[in-house]
């Protein structure tokens, strides 16, 4: 397919890609510098999380909350924000919170941040002396050693709710199945499509794909997180518009948009 336009000096067929990357740079920069805090809607999953913590409080059972096994990426960041929300809610309602970490080579960088968040929750919402470091075990940097550890904790502690967000991979299924079997309300999120599909079947409530970063952004006061969701929406909007208009124009007999996208 021939290109619709070219930029002098830019390799043929790569102009649009360059423009789109530069544009996204500008948009992100704009939102970060302008100090505007964009609106983010509340996703239904957050109600499910609060309800699950509430039910655990009624039953006098602990809550397990995981943040994934990845290093710092945007799934992990949103998981940390959700953890902040969950841990404060738990401390307020007097529920013990279990936060196992580990599972990947870079997960140990995230661990101190998670620790800090839970400690802060006790300081802000309750008594800092109630904080128990043994409730935040680091279960090795190996994926399946971590999984075995989490499954063991689930079997022994029998929590009332298991909130599993962040970057989880194939181990998510083991954890979700065990959580359901021990009677926990299971709320999960998946980062890739086949994982989401199986977790949608296995758990009581699922945050589908980007719902968990959106939930994190909703809870967060950090303008950067909200700005990212805003930028993502702009690009998703562009893609929807291009697909619809492109299809209509193609149906009318012109391949203008295909040429544009090949530029």
């Amino acid at each position, binding site marked *: 397919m021939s290109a619709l336009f070219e930029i002098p000096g830019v390799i043929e067929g790569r102009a649009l890609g360059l423009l789109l990357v530069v544009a996204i740079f500008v948009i992100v920069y704009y939102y970060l510098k302008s100090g505007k805090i964009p609106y983010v809607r509340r996703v239904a999953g957050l109600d499910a999380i609060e309800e699950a913590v509430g039910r655990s409080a009624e039953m006098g059972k602990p809550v397990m909350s995981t943040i994934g096994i990845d290093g710092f990426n945007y799934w992990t960041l949103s998981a940390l924000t959700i953890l902040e929300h969950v841990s404060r809610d738990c401390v307020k309602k007097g529920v013990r919170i279990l936060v196992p970490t580990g599972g990947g080579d870079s997960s140990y960088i995230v661990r101190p941040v998670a620790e800090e968040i839970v400690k802060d929750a006790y300081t802000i919402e309750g008594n800092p002396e109630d904080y128990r470091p043994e409730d935040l075990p680091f279960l090795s940097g190996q994926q399946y050693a971590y999984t075995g550890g989490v499954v063991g904790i689930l079997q022994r502690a029998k929590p009332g709710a298991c909130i599993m967000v962040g970057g989880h991979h*194939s181990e998510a299924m083991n954890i979700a*199945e065990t959580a359901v*079997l021990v009677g926990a309300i299971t709320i999960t999120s998946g980062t*890739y*499509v*086949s994982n989401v*599909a199986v977790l949608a079947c296995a758990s009581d409530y699922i945050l589908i794909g980007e719902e968990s970063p959106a939930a994190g952004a909703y809870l967060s006061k950090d303008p950067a997180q909200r700005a990212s969701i805003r930028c993502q929406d702009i690009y998703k909007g562009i893609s929807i518009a291009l697909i619809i208009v492109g299809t209509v124009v193609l149906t009318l007999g012109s391949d203008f948009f295909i040429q544009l996208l090949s530029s």
Partner: protein
Amino acid sequence: MSLLKSFNSYDSRIVYLLLFLIVTIPLLSPMGLPISVSPSTVTYYDVIDALGPDDLVLVVLDTEFSGYMEIQSGIIASMRVMVERDAKMCVAVSHPEATGIPELVFAAIRETVEEHGYTYGEDYVILGYVFPNEAAVASAAQDWQGVIHKDFYGQSTEGTFLDQIHDWSDWTLISDYTTGIQSGSLINHFGLRGTPMIVNCIGVMISTQMPYLSTGIYQALLQSMRGGAELEYLTGHPGPGMTAMDAFTLGHYMLIVLIIIGNIGYFGTKENSRRNVE
């Protein structure tokens, strides 16, 4: 009614035991149930069938060993075809565990290799773990001679057909066998630039890989163990895939039966409990 109740909820260890037996028994004594061939496998076969002696194929074993157990039939069957067509083959690996795979594959196709006088160095080279991360894939795509110096056995690759390779454009085909470790990097740095690619992926990755097939980066996609078995059938060399198909079929049927039983139990007990309330 207690039967219906037990249909609705039962110890999942029963499911585990059933699945274990249903898979193990037909593997211990195969039944030879017939299979059918899907169009995607035919497309895949057409691509490798068209290879010739002048073609240079980069075979990437992009999998942990676990993935190999699922797609070994596809790997063995397609590499056999490549040997039969006398295409030059370079085997690269993107996971430490996969370094054990080439030995098993070449043992499985030893007769074909001997029959065609397919020789190491001249016709094929095994590179070992050369794609540990995306940067490694990218540098191999841009400057092959600057990165690849030795094969898996520590011998220099100089003097082999790899001397003809300078960058991505020198490959006729990239044949990726993947659980998704570096498939994205191969797409980014080879496929996107225009190197033809085919892929054989594990079942879990089908939905993730499908968009690349529809955009034309992949010429064909062979699905999971089933695709491998169909390829064995097409090439006329029954292997691990076809012998596993009995267990494969029964495993699927077991799930179907479980869904039916579960719904009978669900609706049976639902009716029952409603009546009790009234």
